[in-house]
């Protein structure tokens, strides 16, 4: 069971990473980051079966941080959208040297 769970987790993480790298829509990229986080959560839960309860505790922390992150991130995206009328990250490059 452990192997299958870890394989699923790895696949989810790769999909998430791939999404962050190739997509330009800020919301999609955001969702992909969530996917990566949950891939990690799955590994935690799967491994906690053998290594003790710590992994499951950690998952709660990750979910809390993810929720907070979602709130802040979505707020930023909304405010960007209000300014540019788009969420395509290619248009956002003011934050440099």
């Amino acid at each position: 069971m452990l192997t299958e769970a870890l394989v699923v987790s790895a696949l989810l993480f790769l999909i998430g990473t791939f999404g962050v790298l190739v997509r330009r829509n800020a919301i999609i990229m955001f969702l992909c980051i969530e996917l990566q986080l949950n891939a990690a959560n799955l590994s935690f839960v799967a491994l906690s079966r053998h290594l003790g309860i710590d992994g499951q505790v950690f998952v709660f922390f990750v979910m809390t941080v993810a929720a907070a992150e979602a709130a802040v991130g979505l707020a930023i995206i909304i405010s960007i959208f209000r300014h540019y009328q788009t969420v395509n990250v290619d248009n956002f490059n003011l934050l440099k040297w």
Partner: protein
Amino acid sequence: MGFTEHLVLPPAVSLLGAGWAPAAQGAAYEPFLPGLILLLPLLGFLLNGALALAAGRRSADRIRSGGAAAEGSVEPAGRMLPTWIGPGVVGVAFLLTLINFGRMLGVELNEPVIRSYWTWMGTGNLNVEAAIQLDPLSMVMMMVITGVGFLIHVFSVGYMKEDPGYARYFAYLNLFVFFMLTLVMGANFPMMFVGWEGVGLCSYLLIGFWFHDRPKADAGKKAFIVNRIGDFGFLVAMFILFATLGTLDYVGVFEAAPEAFVYGGGIVTAITLFLLLGATGKSAQIPLFVWLPDAMAGPTPVSALIHAATMVTAGVYLVARSSVLFALAPAGSVAVATIGALTALFAATIALQQVDIKRVLAYSTVSQLGFMFLGVGVGAYAAGVFHLMTHAFFKALLFLGAGAVIHSMHHAFHATHKDWDAQDMRNMGGLRRFMPVTWITMWVATLAIAGIWPFAGFFSKDEIIWASGAAARGGFEFIYTGLWVVALAAAVLTAIYMTRLMVMTFHGPSRAGEEEEKHLHGAPLTMTVPLIALAVLSVFGGWVNVPGSIRESFFGGFGLLPMSDWLDRWLAPITADAQAVLLAELGPVADQAPVGGGHVFWGAVATVVATAVVILTARSIARAGTRPAIEEGLPEGGIRKLLYNKWYVDELYDRIVVRPTLGVSRWAWRVVDQLLIDGTVNAVGNVTRGVGWFGSLFQTGQVNTYAFILTLGVLAVLGVLIL
């Protein structure tokens, strides 16, 4: 003159001359307020300095409120306080010195009296006390400084009356007296160095007193910079002394020196040569004499006090004070004597052709200082100090007299708006009718400096010349005999240039012009009284050290004078150790000139020759006549032009020292500073900026780029961890 008898006196010999009252046996010398002698001039400086600052602020306010600064006038109220404070503090200090001198006279003094006030430097082995030392040598110097200083302060009241910087002038002058007293009263070398630097500062301030005049400000800078070269020598000598003896107190150094140093050894010779370098700077000897003639840019009383009577003699004092060290280093001593004799002759030749009255006196001072160096260089330390003292009298008199002349000429030319140089002797002539007191007193000084019996200079200068001939013994016998001849030549030139000065200034027809003659005036009382006092000293000042043989010979004429060899005996505690070294190493002094003859014979010859020279020079100058400066061109060609241009020493130094220094400085500025140092710093900055610019290229502002690089990084880390 040589005088074997006192050279072999043991240190404990009675200090009293034949005629003095017998010493109260067992009585000790109790100093009377010695610290106050030092502090009074400092107090005067502080008070006058405050007044000067206040006066400066007032005139600044006047200028700001639209009115022009009152040129050439001070309101009487602004003069009142400095007039009393300035000379007053020095006068009181002189009285205190007299009291101390009187107390010292009546006792046997085998140990110097040292008053220590606080520990100035106490680190590790180095312990320097802020202490003053009272002994016969410092007492003589204090008498000269406060006595002559007081007279010159009084003279200044008249001379500087109309100067806007009146209070500032007295502040500087008082500060100078304070530092000069520190120099001679200090009980260790660092204290002397403090005074040494302090008088240099005051000299700079007073030479550049009229600093709005560019050449005068430059002259001040020249004096200061040339002196720094000498100060370096003094410092190095102190370092070596401390490194070898572990102390800088006079008592400690001079007690330890005879055991610690081998006679003629390398270390003691190095010390004396570095001390000599310091002395040549302060006392304007070859090669560092060039600043003194330029120092005449200052007010004339300053030239009298600082650049003739006191500060420039500090080098002689230094050698006399360190006589033990110099006695232990025959090479150092012969260097002192050679430099002195050469300077005496060299400066005297330049004085022959100068036309500025103060420049003649300046070169005369350099020449006379050379005589003093010759004296202390041949081991006649008391004779050197003796000439220092008498020279202070007659040279201060000559400068003050010249000041009175310049004062009068300046007023005459000023009144008629004539654009002539008030210091050029070619514009003078016939002044004896207008200022008889100045005329007579200056003739007294001239006869004194020319060395005519019985004026002061005869006894002091001829004693030095005698000693240089008589000192011909040991390894440097040949050199000393040569120096004797050089000194004789310089003495003849002294008589010539001084007579020339007197004849051109005071005799013959007046060349200033008829209109100007109406404005020529005698000096006011504050100026003539110091002149007369100094004239009296110039006559009698030499009688404190009449050689015993001369005293007996001149038909008993000097039998009335009780002071046979008095100064030699008075200074014996200072010079005894050095004389003991010389006697042990070189044997007794031959008490006759190199070509034979005794005191009386040579004394008579010297007087007759000097008198003849004075008369002949006066006649030939008077017969040749002089024309005003504008009619007479510069001397053309030959030795006269060479002397008029001072052997081109300034030009030579400009070529071999000043310009190369400037060149090297410019190179250091352009190449080392701008190219190497600034270049390195700028390069570091530029490289940092370039690297930053390159790094900033990675910061695109695109989230994808960052994410991509982040992923690559993670993969790389993972790859490293796994493989």
